[in-house]
């Protein structure tokens, strides 16, 4: 091969590189390792994390059982080692699965059209606000303080140089949005209003009432959904103009925070302002049905600086995990799964309350998360629980200084009654 290239050594292929930029020593990293050593190293690293603990954390990342089919299917070479389906004739597997993903996301959210995924829920929410600004021609945004605090941080970063000032509105005693502060946060320049439901405290918002206020000001309502499993039993936010979802709950591992799967869904009339890839149905020369990437004139590889976003990769394989999960549970299973989550969280909230903790934000419906107030610092409670191999709830003071001894607890179908009962004893103190 070297001779064919007209050179005598590999080094000759790099001879045109300027002398002064060449690295003249080996990289200072450890020598290559065998497969056995690599597995061994990562096993040891994994063992230094909590392995097999009961976990009461939600807060934007949810532990649901992942059916074995999920990994069996996504491990197939044809899905794992292919790329963006630019060549439709040899990518119909990926394109078909994305079309199904888009369809299922529409069905679940009540929207007309869903894209083939965003990086995650936080960046998706930021892009949804930018989309609202493009559609309305307005420039301001308003975001509920009950939207995941890290989503809000991402939005702040994204919006800084978009000329998009962000105002925040608060929550009321039952954990839902304070409609008066919402009303005050809006004016004739407000493009988009972002809420989350169930919100960061686990409370389900009255989306219809919020939509009325937002629409009366001519702004668009964006509903972020961080816990996708809630859609099995909670009415979808059909009053919204855009739904921005994090679909991690649908079969995606916690994985210390990623990769996850964002989705933007909206009404047909807004599709040309959507960021991200879309797959559409098409016919071949013989009239046979197939699928193609479509409406790509929105995207950076065509429009460059005038594109709707700079996004290029999507979360392909993660979106496929979600599709498989949704297919395994299906129409009945998603409902049954969501109802189990509801039952477990309801039981836990009642038990914690009975043992002496105060349940905050009562009076509005919740899904699988709830907030309690304890006499003891939640970090101290969590320290004690850790000794029993239980990871306690999320201390809210990290993000909400006014919620000093409050913590956010999550129960899913995987949470055992025995663990709930064990925690109930500790939160009493």
């Amino acid at each position: 091969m070297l001779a064919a290239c007209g050179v005598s050594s590999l080094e000759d292929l790099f001879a045109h590189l300027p002398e002064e930029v060449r690295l003249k020593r080996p990289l200072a990293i450890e020598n290559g390792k065998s497969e056995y050593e690599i597995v061994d190293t990562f096993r040891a690293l994994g063992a230094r994390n909590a392995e097999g603990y009961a976990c009461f954390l939600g807060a934007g990342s949810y532990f649901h059982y992942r059916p074995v089919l999920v990994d069996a299917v996504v491990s197939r070479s044809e899905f794992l080692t292919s790329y963006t389906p630019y060549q439709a004739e040899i990518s119909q597997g990926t394109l078909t699965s994305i079309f199904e993903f888009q369809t299922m996301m529409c069905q679940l959210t009540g929207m007309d059209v869903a894209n083939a995924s965003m990086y995650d829920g936080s960046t998706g929410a930021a892009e949804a606000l930018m989309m609202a600004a493009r559609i309305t021609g307005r420039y301001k945004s308003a975001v509920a303080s009950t939207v995941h605090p890290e989503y809000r941080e991402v939005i702040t970063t994204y919006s800084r140089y978009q000329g998009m000032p962000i105002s925040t509105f608060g929550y009321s005693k039952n954990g839902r949005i304070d409609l008066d502060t919402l009303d005050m946060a809006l004016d004739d320049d407000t493009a988009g209003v972002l809420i989350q439901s169930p919100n960061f405290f686990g409370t389900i918002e009255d989306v219809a009432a919020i939509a009325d206020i937002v629409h009366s000001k001519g702004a668009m309502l964006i509903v972020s959904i961080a816990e996708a499993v809630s859609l099995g039993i909670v009415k979808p936010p059909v009053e919204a103009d855009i739904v921005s979802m994090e679909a991690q709950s649908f079969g995606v591992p916690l994985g210390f925070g990623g990769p996850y799967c964002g989705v933007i869904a909206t009404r047909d009339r807004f599709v040309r302002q959507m960021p991200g890839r879309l797959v559409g149905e098409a016919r071949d020369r013989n009239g046979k049905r197939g699928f193609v990437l479509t409406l790509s004139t929105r995207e950076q590889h065509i429009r460059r600086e005038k594109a709707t976003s700079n996004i290029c990769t999507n979360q392909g394989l993660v979106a496929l995990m979600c599709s498989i999960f949704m297919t395994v549970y299906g129409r009945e299973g998603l409902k049954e799964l969501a109802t189990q989550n509801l039952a477990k969280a309801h039981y836990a909230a009642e038990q914690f309350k009975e043992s002496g903790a105060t349940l905050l934000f009562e009076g509005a419906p919740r899904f699988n998360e709830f907030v309690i107030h304890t006499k003891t610092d939640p970090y101290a409670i969590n320290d004690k629980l850790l000794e029993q191999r239980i990871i306690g709830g999320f201390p809210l003071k990290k993000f909400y200084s006014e919620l000093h001894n409050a913590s956010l607890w999550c129960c899913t179908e995987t949470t055992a009654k025995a663990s709930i009962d064990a925690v109930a004893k500790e939160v009493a103190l």
Partner: protein
Amino acid sequence: MNLNEKIKKATTHISQNEGLIFEKSSPGKKGYMLPPLDVPDVDPGELLGALTREDLGNMPEVSEIEIIRHYTRISTWNYAVDHGMYPLGSCTMKYNARVNEYVARLMGLAEAHPYQPERVSQGALRILQMLSEQLIEITGMDAITLQPAAGAHGELTGILMIRAYLESRGNPRKKILIPDSAHGTNPATAAMSGYTVENLKSNAAGMLDVASLVAQVNEDVAALMLTNPNTLGVFEQEIHKIADVLHAKGALLYMDGANMNALVGKVRPGDFGADVLHLNLHKTFSTPHGGGGPGSGPVACKKILEPFLPAPVVITKKDGTLGFNYNRPKSIGRVRMFYGNFGMHVRALAYIMANGPDGLRQTTEDAVLNANYIREKLKGIYDLPYSTPTMHEVVFSDRLQNPKGIKTGDIAKRLIDYGFHPYTVSFPLVVHGALMIEPTESESKEELDQFIDAMKAIAEEVEQHPEIVADAPHNTRISRLDETTAARKPVLRWKPQS
């Protein structure tokens, strides 16, 4: 003729037809079973009232074997790296070692909650730290964030850092310079960061024209976004001078690291004047492309930009344990929730571990050798618009095939019949009718020779039977799809026939 004796790598075979999952659905079928509830059951209507969802409409109802058959059948309609060479230029479709998949799924890593206490996250933190240290060494930079979720996301992070840095010095400036050979993400990123874009022309050698750069750099320029080697596979010979010209005017050099796989172990961007760069772990560091993602786009930078990195960063605490530091007042803020695509970090670290310094260098050398071998074997048969030495990819044009009415897209489609995934079509834009070929180090000489033979056979067909090429592919499940109608009357979801 459509399926001829020169097509050696592939042949036709039976492949299963399969409808959409919704079309297979029928009421009452189930592919799941939940364990019995160990707490009292609840009435959702009582807890949720009017917010209770009654029905999930068209969500599928199918059995387990139908599910696995559905996905297995449609999967066989895909081409993949595991089928053979996938020479998409700029995408770096290299082999994805399965050990990386295995370790990423180990329970302690896959089931780690991002908010679990640091005390029980030491393994995950150590992975973030190890990967950070190694990527810093590989790039020759001073600091890094692993938070960005993909290459374009890394670009946004890097440009925002430049903006924050310039702002801290009193003036964020107005423009980003971008060569005409750049990826579309570069100008889109600059626009998202509040900058206007000014294009830079390439010279006759396919490199950035330094004279134009000198003329265009002024106090309004925040940075130059440069891919090196560029999208023609050409290393910017005057990279030092480029960096000096920018720095002299107070502008910075952003390097798009999409082609870092041509440099690892041979050249470090930190040594040639780059101030900040992003890496694509799904390209250079072999994390799987997964039909479009997930990616991961770490951003490495020089000391001057370090204070502006997104929060949090991993630190070693006084007691020797690892933790996150959120106290970074100059940070641009978060670009993603949690800590980025950790699962991809695990895979990339496993890749680096398997290779070590020698393996990484060899990987680069083999990638460059493979691309040059294709270049030598196909030049003359396909037009080589730039004679400049190239590295990990080679860009031809369809100029020699144009007289027969054949364009790069047609050749690409015919390549499918020959059992290969096409190269990147019509990019970079500086080459009219581009064929951008990147074999990566993964391919053996045998696979490369088959590819070269296929490309030669297609060139012959263009001369003798151009209609075969113009109508390709012939041996796929479906023929060319009508993309125009698909875009004009978009059908973006399945609906039941009424």
